[in-house]
């Protein structure tokens, strides 16, 4: 273990694993008669990748397949260039996993728990203990590290799960709904930690979440899942679209007919709250809302509200899931 003040063996900016961290080929998993994953083929690049989808989309099943917990019925998976079927232990040595549900080893305080997890991952006892203290400070549990985990709040339990996942300095981190049950302040801090890990500490990570803002804040790439299949994937910026604009629009008149007209003109329309629809106008035409007013006049509907917006991950998600 490098001591404080010495040059670390691996500088923080040193790349960990530059290639695709996960490659799935025709992956299918069936539970009874239902296909939880259906012919999934995807490549997860290095960096921070969000795994997005509604509940039941297959995100957790995919993560558990990557960990080797679930044996696929068909297809193959490679994690950091190692086959999950043949080298599960070599993979688990190099990954960290933060599960969705509350998980801890009973009867341990935080520092013993994290050090124990470090030892289970192969760290010598003294190194594991030293790193346990460090990562507990990093996740913001430094002052509470001698408390029994069973006395922790939900937010603290989320942090300790992150600490045990990073104590052995993994090449790839799987985070399953990391902000579940956290208050807004704790959630922001957790997202900052994840962002810092991905963008300043060069930890590759896959963040599974159904919360679009979480993924948008922490990740560069996204894989959108729906009903056990990949709906879309790619860099978030590219998926949001570089040209075109989103307008929030409220009209008075036959809304259903107007939406079908908008769609026939090639615009994407998604419902939002309180009769407000989000209309994506692609290309240069999107710079001016006049196209919407012209269409409204032609279809004899009144425009009651129009406000330019920017494409968000929500639009990408709605587009991808809607298309399916």
């Amino acid at each position: 273990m490098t001591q404080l003040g010495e040059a670390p063996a691996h500088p923080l900016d040193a790349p960990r694993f530059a290639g695709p961290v996960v490659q799935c080929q025709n992956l299918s998993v069936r539970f009874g008669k239902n296909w939880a994953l259906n012919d999934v083929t995807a490549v997860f690049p290095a960096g921070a990748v969000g795994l997005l989808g509604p509940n039941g989309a297959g995100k957790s099943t995919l993560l558990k397949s990557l960990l080797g917990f679930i044996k696929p019925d068909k297809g193959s998976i490679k994690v950091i260039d190692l086959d999950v079927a043949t080298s599960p232990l070599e993979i688990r040595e190099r990954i960290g996993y933060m599960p969705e549900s509350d998980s801890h080893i009973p009867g341990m305080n935080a520092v013993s728990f994290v050090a124990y997890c470090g030892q289970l991952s192969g760290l010598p006892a003294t190194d594991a203990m030293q790193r346990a203290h460090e990562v507990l400070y990093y996740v913001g549990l430094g002052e509470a590290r001698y408390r029994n985990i069973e006395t922790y709040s939900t937010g603290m339990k989320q942090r300790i799960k992150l600490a045990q996942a990073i104590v052995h300095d993994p090449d790839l981190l799987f985070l399953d709904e990391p902000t579940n049950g956290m208050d807004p302040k704790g959630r922001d801090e957790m997202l900052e930690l994840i962002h810092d890990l991905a963008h300043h500490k060069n930890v590759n990570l896959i963040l599974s979440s159904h919360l679009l803002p979480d993924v948008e804040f922490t990740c560069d790439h996204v894989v959108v899942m729906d009903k056990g299949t990949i709906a879309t994937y790619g860099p978030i910026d590219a998926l949001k679209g570089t040209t075109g604009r989103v307008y929030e629009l409220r009209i008075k008149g036959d809304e259903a007919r107007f939406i079908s007209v908008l769609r026939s003109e090639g615009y994407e329309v998604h419902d939002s709250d309180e009769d407000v629809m989000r209309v994506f106008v692609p290309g240069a035409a999107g710079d001016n809302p006049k196209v919407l007013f012209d269409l409204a006049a032609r279809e004899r509907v009144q425009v009651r509200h129009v406000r330019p917006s920017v494409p968000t991950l929500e639009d990408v998600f709605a587009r991808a899931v809607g298309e399916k």
Partner: protein
Amino acid sequence: MPIHDQGYRRYGGTRAGIGRAWQVMTRAGVMTIIAKRQFLALMLFAWAPFVVRAVQIYVAANFQQASFLAPKGETFREFLDQQGAFVFFVTIYVGAGLIANDRRANALQLYLSKPMTSAEYIAGKLAILFLFLVSVTFLPAMMLLLTQAMFAGSLTFVSNNLYLLPAITLFSLAQVLLASTTMLALSSLSKSSRFVAVMYAGLFFFTTALFNALRGITGRSSFVWLSPTASLEQIGDVIFLLPPRYQLSPSVAGLTVLILIGASLYILSRRVRGVEIVT
């Protein structure tokens, strides 16, 4: 200061090879158990029969009038039979929560996300119970043999009863393996260690009561296979070269014990998984 400014460093030290995680688990489990005062008290009680037998051997070796107390091969068989009670209590105290507590705290997915197979997890947990059970069966029995040689000042008894070395080893192993695998299998079936303890006690008391009831009604003891405890007694008699006490082939009794151990291992292999799938 933002939390993340407090530092996170790359790790440049050594890593143990794959396949050693179960040892970490066993070490931690043993340390946790021996830190409990109640358990230490239980261990003191468990070693009390050894002290009594050691005094018996001392008296027999040093006083002619008490030569009737001199140990025989049967003495060691009786000693291990007596230790059966402590095997029961230690199994419940140590074993009931071994997997049940992990299931309650959802720890299985944490363990199995580390470089560790489910077989290693089971081995790590079994080793904890195995070590404590060996320390109340095999260890005191062997020490008793050693004590006899020391007090007698010769190895005559040991050389005349050389079969005792494999007999003590084999019978202790049967006792320990049966108790530890059965308890661990039961522990994997529930999230409550108390419920597991009740199930274990129930299993042994109920099967013994059933066997004794049938024996009383029919007047025959061929229903030994119904009771793991009685089956173990039957095997013990054969191992210690004594006439079997029940009217059942010792091989059937042995098969009963083997089936129970096999079934327990099968249950463990089904229950120890990183994810529970309900279809």
